[in-house]
């Protein structure tokens, strides 16, 4: 410790950029695509305090004494001058509120759309996936906490403006851009402009979110994106308070808004043993989905693995996931999947009317795609989703 002085690093020490998705890398190789669009050490790497990343926030109000109130997510942080909101990526500078992560992804990758997971959206296609640092929640089981629970200065990032992302997605034959890994709500301005840029190049946009967002920005967003997957963390406020640090009600309202806006919605429910897996909770959830969102909204019950601050619980038993699926099926939901259990038959899509196998999956791979003109080839039932 005494000789630390001359061993101080010249370069900022940061977290190693996370190695996302081995499986996607394999998929890229199979598809003949590079796992990473740029070689390591690309000159696009960005410096810490670069003004290119700073844009005035879209949804906030100015208060007295240089305070601001953010109106992007239901937390509605009231922020003093020089301070940041809960998400850590928005800063009050002299009474004006700024996002610090515009065009500042800390990671980008080419993923199969099934990894998101979106099962009723262009099966077998690739999604050019980006994330910035930050999140407006703090889930105790977060698997990406090294990027979601940090500020933009604490991770390496790139300067990739919306046009560039759209161009890269096109170059790598991705059919969509996915805003994912952390929480895209907090990089809203960047996501919104990138989705617009993508549309100009015929690249769709999908949002992978916890759905903790205010109605007005969400409605605007729905106009420029094609699908939203909401991670519904539980169906009890207690869980949201203790495990997620958020609120359930706004998430339920957000899902209703997505459906009302006609944007494709899928739901993921991470089943955490003993915390959100009771029969009553799953039944209540299923009834809510059926009544307020529609029986055709796909729901994925996915397996939990111990992570981050929640390491004292075992991985979810497959039997628990099967029980959740059975409850949701019994309540009349038509597309109920089991996730994070590669090879399970509940990864497949079946026709809810005749039982015909429509899409056969193993992990992120599509083995069979039998939907024809958005319909079941056997009985002609229309299968909801975006298939081409």
């Amino acid at each position, binding site marked *: *410790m*005494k000789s*630390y*002085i*001359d061993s*101080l*690093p010249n370069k*900022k*020490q*940061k*977290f190693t950029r996370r190695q996302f998705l081995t499986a996607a890398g394999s998929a890229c190789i199979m598809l003949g695509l590079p796992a990473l669009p740029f070689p390591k050490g690309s000159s696009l790497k960005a410096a*810490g*305090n670069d003004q290119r990343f700073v844009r005035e926030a879209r949804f906030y109000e100015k208060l007295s*004494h*240089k*305070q601001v109130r953010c109106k992007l997510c239901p937390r509605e942080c*009231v922020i*003093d*001058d*020089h*301070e*940041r*909101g*809960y*998400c*850590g990526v928005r800063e009050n500078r002299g009474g004006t509120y700024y996002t610090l992560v515009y065009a500042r992804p800390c990671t980008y990758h080419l993923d199969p759309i099934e990894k998101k997971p979106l099962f009723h959206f262009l099966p077998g296609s690739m999604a050019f996936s980006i994330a910035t640092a930050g999140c407006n929640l*703090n889930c*105790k089981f977060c698997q990406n906490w090294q990027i979601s*629970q*940090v*500020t933009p*200065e*604490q991770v390496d990032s790139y300067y990739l403006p919306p046009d560039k992302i759209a161009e890269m997605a096109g170059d790598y034959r991705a059919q969509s851009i996915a805003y994912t890994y952390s929480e895209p709500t907090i990089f809203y301005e960047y996501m919104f402009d990138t989705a617009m840029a993508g549309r100009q190049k015929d690249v769709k946009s999908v949002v992978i979110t916890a759905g903790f967002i205010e109605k007005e920005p969400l409605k605007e967003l729905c106009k420029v994106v094609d699908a939203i997957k909401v991670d519904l963390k539980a169906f009890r406020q207690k869980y949201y308070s203790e495990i997620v*640090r958020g609120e359930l009600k706004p998430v339920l309202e957000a899902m209703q808004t997505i459906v009302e806006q006609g944007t494709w919605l899928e739901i993921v429910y991470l089943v955490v043993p003993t915390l959100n897996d009771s029969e009553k909770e799953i039944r209540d959830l299923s009834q809510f989905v059926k009544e307020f969102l529609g029986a055709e909204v796909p729901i994925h019950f996915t397996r939990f693995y111990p992570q*981050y*601050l929640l390491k004292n619980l075992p991985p979810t038993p497959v039997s628990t996931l099967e029980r959740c699926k059975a409850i949701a099926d019994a309540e009349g939901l038509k597309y109920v999947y089991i996730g994070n259990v590669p090879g399970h038959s509940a990864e497949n899509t079946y026709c809810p009317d005749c039982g015909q196998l429509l899409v056969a999956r193993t992990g992120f791979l599509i083995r069979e795609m039998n939907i024809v003109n958005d319909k079941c080839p056997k009985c002609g039932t229309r299968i909801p989703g975006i298939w081409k």
Partner: protein
Amino acid sequence: MNRRIFLKKSFLLNSGFWLGRKYALAGSNAKAKVVIAQNPAVVNRHQVQSDQLLALLDKAMQAYFDCDNPLQAWQKVVQPDEVIGLKVNCLSGTGSTHRELVDAVVERLKEAGIKPYNIIIWDRLNKDLEECKFQIRSRGRQVKCFGNDLAGFHPRLQVFGQAGSLVSRIVTDYCDGIINLPVLRDHSIAGISVALKNMFGAIHNPNKYHLNTGDPYIADVNAFPVFRKKIRLTIVDALEAQYHGGPAFQPQWRWPFAGLIVGQDRVAIDCIAWQIIEEKRKQKGLPPLKQENREPHYIITAGDTEHRLGFVHKEKIETIYL
């Protein structure tokens, strides 16, 4: 020979301020000592008088450590050849830890045998330090000054209660001991931001811990073993304090307290600081923090049996006025 000359004031003990609760060490004989040293001449028209400040610091240190001279007092805090970090608070520009106080502490540390290059003045970001006129310096033989953004964070997550954070390498790797140099001020969310809350500048995710007026997060963060082990002393910069509108610098709500608050029990110090701010608010016709739903209950939590970070009970705090 005991050459302390001080008055023991009792307004804190008699004001009905103290809260009832199960206290961590209520049954033991141990006590926290907190020294409040004031001298109106130390601040003149917002200008800190360095010579007066050094004298005030010396007086406070001697009183706290019951020593005949400042060197003896500092020798009870640090050992020659140690690396000592000075955790300033540079978040609110002009309202931050005064440069003059830092200089005074540095001077005494050097006299106590600490090499200049083994002193690190630090806070969250280089940018914050520069805004407070500190010069960033990470190499060479002079006093060092840099932010967590230069040093980075230790990759092992520290977990206590509801908090899980990475801690600055300045604390985990570089320093043997930390001297905490917070400011005395109001905080719009946490009620007050003084000794305990200053450690938010040492973790990677303070933005996550302002829920519920920082309770229990501020206490939880301070309970990380690395902080328990390394924080040696707190000297609160109360030269100019703020009783409302903090942590942002709001000149209309500042007043020249013209003092320092010195101690090693961060909980006891925060209890005193809380009281001082409440009294000033009352004097200025402002409601108590509780009425504004921002009572700093995290201080009480920090003293509970789970955290055991210090004393909150009036009988357990010896307040010494100079």
